[in-house]
């Protein structure tokens, strides 16, 4: 049994917002795969829940008139993996989300929940960073659009004020049309594991030149991050093996892995560097460029 003091079901986004304001100590629960575990552990702040599990208003994947891809925050990972829109336009996100847990977890955990934890290891985050996802956040009478890189404020902290709900992830066509991506999750096990390092690469080429390059990491710093120095240094360069080596050298300047009981800094850096080459190579392969 969970030591739940309050459980209130929300029947719409606005209702959820109102409930959060009325119950300032409450938090949202959607899939529950993180919240219920923290509740079981007795962590403070998890015993009052506003329940948005299965809320239809948050459950959509569509393209609007401007070809923006819109993913509701309540979409479960299995639906992302099976979505024709995602498979066609941003298959990298399918790869990232496929790596999470096992089927039971993917059937119920949501992309919104995965990101609202504010943890650097969120498997969907690095791909969303590479895609420059913009998040729609609604409060009482307010809507704001926040780029994902601004949403993550620090370990365990995201830009959500009291009474606000993350409703949508938006990926604009400038960020996915013509791009090829690859996601690599390095972990101790091939399933049911958190990332030691997650690496997402998204790139565009023309005539063997890299016209755009994005590389994002999870667990390479306190929050998921992009690598601006590396990206800048390789744009408009010719695709080659030495370019890959260059990436793996420069990447050191963009990341700040730490030592924890799970892995040492040097070990993480080694993986970060190797993944920068492998993920880039795979993305290039998808783009039709052989190195």
């Amino acid at each position, binding site marked *: *049994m*969970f030591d739940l003091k309050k*459980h209130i*079901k929300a029947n719409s986004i606005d209702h959820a917002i109102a409930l959060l304001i009325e119950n300032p100590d409450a938090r949202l629960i959607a899939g529950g795969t993180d919240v*219920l575990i923290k509740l079981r552990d007795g962590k403070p702040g998890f015993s009052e829940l506003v329940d948005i599990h299965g809320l239809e208003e948050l459950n959509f994947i569509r393209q609007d008139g401007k070809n923006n891809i819109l993913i509701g925050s309540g979409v479960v990972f299995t639906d992302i993996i099976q979505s024709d829109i995602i498979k066609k336009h941003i298959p990298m996100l399918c790869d990232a989300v496929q790596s999470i847990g*096992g*089927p039971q977890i993917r059937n*119920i955990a949501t992309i919104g929940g995965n990101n609202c934890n504010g943890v650097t290891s969120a498997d969907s985050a690095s791909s969303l960073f590479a895609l420059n996802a913009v998040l729609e956040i609604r409060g009482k009478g307010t809507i704001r659009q926040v780029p994902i890189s601004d949403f993550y404020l620090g370990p365990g902290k995201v830009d959500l004020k009291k009474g606000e709900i993350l409703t949508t992830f938006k990926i604009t066509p400038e960020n996915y049309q013509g791009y090829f991506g690859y996601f690599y999750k390095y972990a101790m096990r091939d399933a049911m594991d958190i990332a030691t390092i997650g690496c997402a690469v998204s790139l565009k080429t023309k005539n063997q030149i890299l016209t755009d390059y994005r590389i994002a990491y999870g667990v390479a710093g306190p929050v998921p991050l992009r690598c601006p120095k590396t990206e800048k240094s390789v744009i408009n360069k010719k695709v080659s093996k030495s370019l890959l080596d260059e990436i793996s050298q420069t990447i050191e300047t963009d990341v700040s892995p730490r030592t924890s009981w799970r892995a040492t800094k040097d070990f993480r850096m080694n993986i970060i560097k190797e993944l920068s080459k492998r993920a880039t190579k795979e993305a290039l392969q998808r783009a039709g460029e052989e190195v």
Partner: protein
Amino acid sequence: MTTFREITFSINGRPRTLYIDMRKSLLEVLREDLGLTGAKQGCGVGECGACSVLVDEVLVDSCIYLAVWAHNKDIRTIEGEAKNGKLSRVQQAYVDEGAVQCGFCTPGFIMATTSFAENCTEKKVTEDDIRKSHAGNLCRCTGYQNILKAVEKSIHPDKE
């Protein structure tokens, strides 16, 4: 404020209305309120899959599924799989392929395989497909080897 809620759902095809403690997980309601003890508790955090059941045909870990979410849903547990005294094809495959040892993970695994087999539209199922779709179920006895054979047999019962 009472912690009790009324929920209505169907369990293995039979409709039920129960008055339950809202703090309970679906696993606890199944085991304690309905006496369906096939689903087991192995970890309590959705890591081992021993509690797996189908909710509206979707495989979930019932230990981290709030019982109140089961309202208006169709729940399938291991107890509903054998019909008229006959094992389902999946259950029979686990028996025949030696995929059962201590049996504690078995109900969860069988629900995972049942879900996989029922949703299998591909003619050609790869071993990778099987491993991925059962990756949320842990077993400590079998090394997964005979389970792999049981899943294959569930999909191709006539193959040797």
